[in-house]
């Protein structure tokens, strides 16, 4: 194979990897440039161009795949990197949820494992495909019509495909706002705690004599076993909250204890809702439980947010902590 044939073969291999619109033009240019380069090398070496010289030149130039990629990078990014962790988490959650909801049918022998796998197990992976498709479209829309951060205007396609709004960072004090709200809600919490101890007894004293308040009587079992720890938790938590609202140092020290009491309180309430009656009368019990469930769902969400915030908080290692002044401020 002579030197020119080697170059032409090489150029054909590069051109084959290029997009159609570039193929001929780049191929022609590359052939001219390589031929000229080869002639120059031969001139410098004071000999005729040969196959060895051409091979060395092309080896230095790079493998045809690499060269083609330098001219026109192939492939594309399906999902923006910032979406990828969310897609993985959502897909895992959806697959796990579908399995968790449908597997009990196998455990209770209402369905064979093979049937379950064909009907529910395998189809759960469709969530992954759906999410990749959805976020792929969102990424494509974001690339085609990006929204300017801080402009407040975004294309309608961003709304449909849930493209996150590019926000400008502004300093905020969410914790200070939360504590202002906590201080405002403290008296209400105290009143609710008192009412919670014995609603029927309080109503008897507030309403005109002879008014029937039996609908507000607690179920005996609830009153005996669950009410005392619930009241204790509410009271201790209220005291700690009041102390924390007034003193910033105490706020940091008691955070884990307050969170523990909060989680315990919510867990006990879940037990009360699903473990039996709270009020003796069925109607009162059903209405109260409906409201309590809303309260519990909001609190569960807040607990999840708190745990996430606590887990992702930057912690100062003990070795970096400033030494405390004894008997100081």
């Amino acid at each position: 194979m002579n030197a020119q044939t080697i170059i032409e073969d090489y150029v054909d291999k590069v051109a084959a990897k290029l997009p159609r619109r570039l193929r001929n033009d780049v191929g022609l240019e590359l052939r001219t440039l390589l031929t000229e380069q080869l002639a120059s090398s031969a001139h410098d070496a004071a000999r005729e161009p040969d196959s060895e010289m051409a091979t060395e030149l092309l080896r230095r130039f790079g493998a045809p795949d690499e060269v083609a990629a330098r001219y026109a990078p192939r492939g594309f990014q399906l999902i923006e990197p910032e979406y990828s962790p969310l897609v993985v988490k959502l897909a895992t959650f959806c697959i796990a949820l579908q399995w968790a909801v449908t597997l009990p049918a196998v455990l209770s022998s209402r369905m064979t494992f093979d049937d379950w796998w064909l009907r529910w197990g395998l189809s759960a992976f469709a969530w992954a495909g759906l999410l990749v498709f959805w976020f792929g479209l969102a990424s494509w829309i974001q690339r085609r019509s990006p929204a300017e951060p801080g402009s407040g205007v975004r294309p309608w396609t961003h709304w449909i495909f849930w493209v996150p709004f590019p926000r400008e960072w502004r300093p905020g004090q969410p914790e200070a706002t939360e504590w202002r709200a906590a201080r405002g809600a403290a008296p209400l919490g105290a009143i609710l705690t008192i009412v919670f101890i014995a609603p029927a007894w309080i109503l008897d004293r507030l309403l005109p004599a002879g008014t029937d308040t039996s609908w507000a009587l607690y179920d005996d079992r609830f009153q005996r076993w669950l009410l005392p720890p619930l009241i204790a938790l509410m009271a201790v938590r209220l005291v700690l909250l009041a102390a924390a609202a007034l003193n910033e140092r105490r706020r940091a020290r008691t955070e884990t204890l307050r969170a523990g009491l909060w989680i315990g309180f919510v867990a006990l309430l879940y037990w009360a809702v699903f473990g039996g009656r709270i009020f003796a009368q069925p109607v009162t019990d059903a209405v109260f439980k409906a409201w309590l469930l809303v309260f519990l769902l909001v609190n569960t969400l807040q607990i999840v947010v708190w745990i996430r915030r606590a887990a992702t908080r930057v912690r100062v290692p003990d070795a970096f902590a400033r030494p405390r002044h004894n008997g100081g401020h």
Partner: protein
Amino acid sequence: MAVTNDNPASKLETELRRGTLVLATLSQLRSAQYGYSLRQALAEQGMPIEEGTLYPLLRRLEEQGLLASDWRIEDGPPRRYYKLNSKGTRLLADLTTNWQTLVGTMNRLLK
């Protein structure tokens, strides 16, 4: 320009030079040049650039709207000539100013 991980100095020098490639290339395209002549011009002035890097770079700069190109037959085979267009000329002026500021800053830092 083979770079190996066991030679960080060589890798860092390559990265340093890579940052100057575009400016060096644009600086030589005030007049029309084809790939091989441009490479020669750069090498003669102490900036050798590998063919496999330079030729695709010319295409990319053209796709970015900084260069104009056309095929010409002069003394030799048909060649594709590249030259700065108005946008490329403006960019070269901006990059030159930035480069000079950077060189001044680096000189002060390296004293």
